[in-house]
């Protein structure tokens, strides 16, 4: 897993509620058997004017000038602010892969869907839940001030505005621990191999039909 400690960067506002993972990365790109190469297809249907397919040269496709990430002032953004229930729908881990490979390091929203939240954490993409009113303020500030940046500190659990204002956020302590240390969760679990075997032996007695 990638580590996440702190990050400071340009903010892009994605002003839509209930953004689903089908929108984050459309199905045709799920045919890939690789873990990389999804960045150019993040929000593919909103971002380009034509229909994209795997194998195209995406750098030559016509961009939708109205789509927020295509506006020059948001180029190079690393923090995405979004509305409630971001990442709902399909369990495709290609969604956090695409966000990370595009260049985002953190997403701030009032709420996230459960599976997307877990998938993001496993890949070092930090999801920050802030009160809807605060998110609303960040949206207006990001729109009003070109070049608006936010600093995110996972250790201190804070989001800091250019004006020096701090907003603290909650995060599950175990998720924080894993993110800060970039832990290999499989390796950690395998340290418990004896306990897993012991459980299996017990389960085999209790519910032998499962084996």
């Amino acid at each position, binding site marked *: 897993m990638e580590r996440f400690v702190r990050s400071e960067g340009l903010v892009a506002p994605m002003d839509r509620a209930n953004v689903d993972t089908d929108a984050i990365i459309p199905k045709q790109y799920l045919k890939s058997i690789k873990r990389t190469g999804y960045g150019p297809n993040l929000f593919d249907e909103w971002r380009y004017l034509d229909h994209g397919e795997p194998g195209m040269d995406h750098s030559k496709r016509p961009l939708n000038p109205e789509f927020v990430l295509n506006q020059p002032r948001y180029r190079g953004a690393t923090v995405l602010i979004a509305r409630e*229930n971001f990442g709902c729908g399909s369990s*495709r881990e290609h969604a956090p892969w695409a966000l990370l490979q595009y260049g985002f390091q953190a997403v701030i929203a009032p709420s996230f869907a459960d599976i997307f939240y877990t998938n993001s954490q496993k890949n070092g993409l930090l999801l920050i839940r802030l009160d809807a009113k605060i998110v609303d303020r960040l949206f207006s500030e990001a729109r009003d001030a070109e070049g608006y940046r936010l600093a995110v500190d996972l250790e201190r659990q804070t989001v800091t505005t250019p004006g020096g204002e701090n907003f603290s956020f909650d995060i599950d302590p175990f998720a924080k621990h894993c993110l800060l240390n970039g832990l290999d969760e499989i390796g950690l679990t395998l340290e418990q191999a004896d306990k897993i075997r012991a459980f299996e032996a017990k389960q085999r007695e209790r519910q032998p039909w499962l084996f």
Partner: protein
Amino acid sequence: MTARTLYDKLWESHIVHEVRDGATLLYIDRHLVHEVTSPQAYEGLKLAGRKPWRVDSIVATADHNTPTRNWEKGIAGIADPVSRLQVETLDRNIKEYGARVYFPFLDKQQGIVHVIGPEQGATLPGMTLVCGDSHTSTHGALGCLAFGIGTSEVEHVLATQCLVVKKTKCMNIVVEGALGRGITAKDVILAIIGKIGSAGGTGYTLEFTGNAIRALSMEGRMTLCNMSIEAGARAGMVAVDDKTIEYVKGRPLAPKGPMWDRAEAYWRTLASDPGAQFDKVVMLDAASIEPQVTWGTNPQMVTTIDGKVPDPAQEKDPVQREWITRALKYMALKPNTPITEIRPDKVFIGACTNSRIEDLRVAAQVVKGRRIAASIKLAIVVPGSGRVKRQAEQEGLDKIFTAAGFEWREPGCSMCLGMNDDQLSPGERCASTSNRNFEGRQGPGGRTHLVSPAMAAAAAIAGHFVDVRTFN
């Protein structure tokens, strides 16, 4: 001992180890694998030099990319080389690492992973079951803890047979009373989503109870649990009763003989204890549920067949107003349009939500002796599995559908997400028995209206949405 919920019982019987800060190492009994979310997990396993912990927990199939026509061409029938490679990669991974059972593309028992799990007896009460697919919630209908996971977690389960997870809160959705004639499980779950919202179940596991739920068939309960994820919940479940036991008995992977008796005795304990405390309780009156039709780009955007498309001007919250406005623009619908005036171009009966034998029987009953409307460009029925397909053919359902102008296809996920050739073209409108009406879900620019199989069948005949209760 304190009264426990069904979720408590399933959770507690699978704890291997309390890791820290409420994170639990939970043992996974059954791992369902399909071609889309597994290649990177197998690759990760290989790169780390690891082996699957317990191969006999794995049941695999190819379903998302597989075509629903031209099976006689064999693997070459998958025209898209990228799709073909993904299907072949699953073949290769299963060949290299093994599985309890594998139903590859073209196998007579292949089908949608969430249809074949229960029908093969690969899904059993009391289990923990995962799959790299959000609709894994379906399996909770059998009284097990089943939830969707991402590819990192697929790799974790392959390597360790466990997941590091936190216990969710538990919501009891109580549906009491009798469903009206023509009302199905699909209408019930859409009504629930309409009530609690598509994020209403976030952070919860749902347990559906009440006499309307007990009255549902196992297929109906699967439809219900299937769309728990559309209510935001990773898992949904229904307690074990006589119907569950009857359903599981005799399935290929179900226990037999004395082992069956032991299993059955245990399974019958799998219900919430009287007085068990839930974190939240939501009540619905079954008799008030009417046929549901979605009008927007999220399953929460749903109304009844006698309803109208909403007017965003009536919405006070600016974020919600913007959301509705955007959805209506995408769906090319005007505010206050009666639902019965909406005319689909295509009709899709299938998907892990509604492709089981009961779904096909209900739809066939509606179309029997009739023809699809001239305005319908394509109407397809995609059975959930090879077994469902053959059963339907034995009952003559295929003939009823084809006589009415429907195409009768081979099993798979098909037009639910259009990873194969079954897609909507830009601007096309579809009456669909699937589970998601997101933008572009069934094809770029496609417009999806989620309905029950009976309502989809009736729309195909009428050429517009129509109340199936007064249609016959």
